[in-house]
């Protein structure tokens, strides 16, 4: 059985169809790239999966449980982690508090497994080399550092499915490498990852499979190499070569 199963998922907002009949089976341990032109519904798909938007049609199962009607915070507690396009760290809180608040929100059994939360916070910050900034407010970080912090926080929170929305957007090229490494760590640990990304070489490096969204539909899917060289991809981007 797949870890995540999406069946004929549709969403209409204000009379406008945003997602149209999406079917997707995601196996445990898979890393899937989600690409598509701006406005094709990638973030919206993540918002439906995270529980911020209720689908008009369709069902979502996670670990064999129907979570179509589940609230966002409940989904987080059963193992869905989200990394936001616009940075999900709390800028007015210190780095330490940013991690601690995530660990405290975990179900009790998971918190007990972590043991001393202060230590877990420290090792999280260490994982992304931010331990010296523990007491600083997150708004003092660069975009890349915020993203690393957010991914590390989600990793330590024991999430199983990661929804990463443009993790390299607004990040310096130097940090992009670090983020790719961290995502590969997720993969090594057997985590399942859906990642929205524009950078095709980046996708090719880390993904097992790519799906291409176009006006709310899966227009194309397959292995990264096959998708990249499929003529339809260029068509979707209106002739613009997304590789350059």
């Amino acid at each position: 059985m797949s870890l995540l199963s999406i069946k004929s998922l549709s969403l209409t907002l204000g009379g406008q169809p945003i997602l149209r009949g999406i079917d997707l089976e995601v196996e445990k341990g898979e890393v899937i790239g989600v690409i598509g032109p701006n406005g094709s519904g990638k973030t919206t798909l993540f918002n439906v999966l995270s529980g911020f938007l209720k689908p008009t049609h369709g069902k979502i199962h996670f670990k064999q449980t129907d979570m179509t009607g589940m609230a966002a915070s409940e989904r987080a507690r059963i193992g869905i982690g989200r990394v936001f396009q616009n940075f999900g760290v709390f800028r007015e809180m210190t780095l330490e508090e940013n991690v601690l608040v995530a660990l405290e929100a975990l179900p009790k059994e998971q918190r007990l497994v972590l043991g001393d939360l202060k230590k877990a916070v420290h090792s999280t910050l260490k994982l992304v080399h931010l331990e010296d900034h523990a007491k600083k407010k997150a708004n003092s970080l660069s975009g890349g550092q915020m993203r690393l912090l957010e991914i590390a926080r989600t990793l330590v929170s024991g999430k199983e499915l990661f929804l990463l929305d443009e993790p390299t957007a607004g990040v310096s090229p130097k940090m992009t490498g670090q983020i790719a490494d961290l995502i590969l760590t997720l993969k090594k640990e057997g985590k399942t990852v859906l990642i929205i990304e524009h950078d095709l070489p980046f996708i090719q490096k880390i993904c097992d499979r790519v799906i291409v969204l176009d006006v709310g539909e899966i227009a194309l899917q397959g292995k990264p190499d096959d998708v990249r060289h499929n003529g339809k991809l260029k068509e979707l981007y209106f002739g613009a070569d997304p590789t350059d």
Partner: protein
Amino acid sequence: MNYLLHILTMIGLSIPNILGYNLIFGRGKFLHFGPIATSLFSSYAMFLTLRETGNYLSAFFVGLLASLLLSSFFAWLALRLESDALGILTIAMHLALLSVVLNWSSLTRGALGLPQIPRITGMLSLPVFASVSIVIALLWIFFMVRVHRSWLGRELSALAENRAHAEALGINRARVTLSAFLIGGLGATITNTLYPQYIGLLHPNDYQFSNLIFFILCVVAGGPGSVRGVVISIVLLTSLQELIRFLPLPLGLIGPMRLLFFGLILIIAVYIRRKEIFPMQRSV
């Protein structure tokens, strides 16, 4: 000496209620304008029970229950309404409760208030009353510092900064909101158990909008969400409020002058802290 004790008592009595409100409005950034409504409801429930039963313990529990009930209702509203609607509705609740108290004279004696509120035995003298108030205030400050440093403080901050980001971590908004409002309700009950005893009278004028302005002023001037800052502003502003009485002004002018003065400080404080009070919400 007596005057100093009086000011200390007034400060001590304000602290539980205003620091509780600071958790909701300052730290949680809820546009909640109902702390005086809660106080009014709680104290009338308490002292009407006292009048009927003569038993302080049962009166206290009725007052506490009333306060927690109304606080839960406000929390429920806060979970369901947008910020602006919550603000308007809590002000409307305050207004509605005030007019019930003022007009249901057969029960509440309306604008006359409930006179001859007895002090609990042992708290009859001013020095004792002042000491008890200060000790309770100190205990409450200690408790509030703990709350602000706990998961509740952090989760309130997280939700205030970005609700979606907080919920995506698994933070339960209902639990956090209810906890904050219940703590606010507890603070309101403590203050309102003591204050009418202190002046020997439960009077609707002590629950007017000017009091709400004073609460907001203390929180905004002290720094929303900061326990230390709000305690400092309670100390300074309460002293100021009491000292204004000594200005050489005609009696009828003192009230309006005070309101004008505090209004002015509020405007300045809100302007200086506008970024903290109305944080920018980022979307998903």
